[in-house]
């Protein structure tokens, strides 16, 4: 059989595609902190999502969201552990006084659990060939304390998602990297994606584990 390029297909059953096993939406007022909602799943979901100050989500931003300066601190965070999804909104400027959020979750790579259907949350099509559906190349877990890399050798920058798990069992979507130049020497911590590999430089974050998903689809 001829070898195919997964990018040529909107969906391709030769490759696993993302299935959303958890969904939650809501809003928080300023100062609502560590608000827990049981997710009722037999595993810790890999959550991701958006938050927005407009109720129609027109100003959607990735979760977690941070605006941190000496003068102002605005944060929206979301985490999951084996029982709850936790959200928090802090804003020392006071306004906007409300933030809206939508949280989605994938099953972790080491789980083969039974999970109830989520299609009831959809308003129209579950699959729609007007759009592309990402084809999974590899998913897994790496040690968060040790720098490591995973080769893909695609020759292009693929889409990559990463979640950080702390020793307490809370798992956060990793949306942050650090870039520094100290006396002319540059350094980076976070997850770096090149045309040949994904580099987990995350030892500075002091996380126990990093969960990842690498797709054939281009970033």
């Amino acid at each position, binding site marked *: 059989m001829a070898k195919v390029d997964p990018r040529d297909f909107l969906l391709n059953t030769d490759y696993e*595609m993302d299935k959303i096993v958890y969904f939650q939406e809501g809003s928080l007022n300023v100062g609502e902190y560590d608000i827990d909602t049981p997710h009722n799943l037999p595993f810790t979901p890999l959550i991701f999502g958006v938050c927005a100050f407009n109720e129609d*989500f027109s100003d959607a931003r990735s979760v977690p969201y941070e605006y941190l300066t*000496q003068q102002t601190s605005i944060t929206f965070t979301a985490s999951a552990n084996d029982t709850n999804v936790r959200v928090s909104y802090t804003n020392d400027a006071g306004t906007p006084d409300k933030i809206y959020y939508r949280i*989605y979750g994938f099953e972790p790579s080491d789980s083969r659990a039974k*999970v109830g*259907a989520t299609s009831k949350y*959809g308003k129209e099509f579950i699959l729609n060939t007007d759009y592309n559906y990402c084809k999974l190349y590899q998913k897994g877990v790496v040690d968060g304390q040790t720098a490591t890399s995973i080769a893909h050798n695609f020759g292009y920058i693929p889409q990559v998602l990463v979640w950080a798990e702390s020793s307490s069992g809370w798992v956060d979507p990793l949306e942050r990297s650090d870039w*520094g130049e100290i006396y002319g020497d540059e350094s980076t911590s976070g997850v*770096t994606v090149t045309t040949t590999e994904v580099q987990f430089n995350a030892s500075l974050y002091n996380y126990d584990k990093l969960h990842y998903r690498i797709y054939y689809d281009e970033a």
Partner: protein
Amino acid sequence: MKPSDFILNSDYLSIAQTGRQTITASIAAGTLTPGSYTEQNLDFTVRALAGAVDRIMIKKDSGEFQVGAYQRLEIYTSDTPYTRIVGFVSVFRTSATNMRLQLVLENVTPNTVTYPAMTFTVQVTSFRPPNVF
């Protein structure tokens, strides 16, 4: 049922990619007096999609792409006199059709600091959330 038993399964919501885009933003060099900060917002037109879930990667200058919509920046410009700039670059939507690259830099030392010109390249892949079809 087990989601892991299926390559695709219409019992579970999927997430549809509607587009991908590269954004390049250049920031000119500047000066910060002691304790001052600068916030620069560069806006770009993107395909209309209210409530989009965007996957962001950011590359600074000739570096490599980093996963995430937020990159913290820290620059020690010299050791005599001691100068240090901290800040971040963040990418998010301001409306259904606009995306903003926001750069914030602060001089946290008692000396005037010059920060260098910077170029950021942002890869944006946008997804249509399953509950807002």
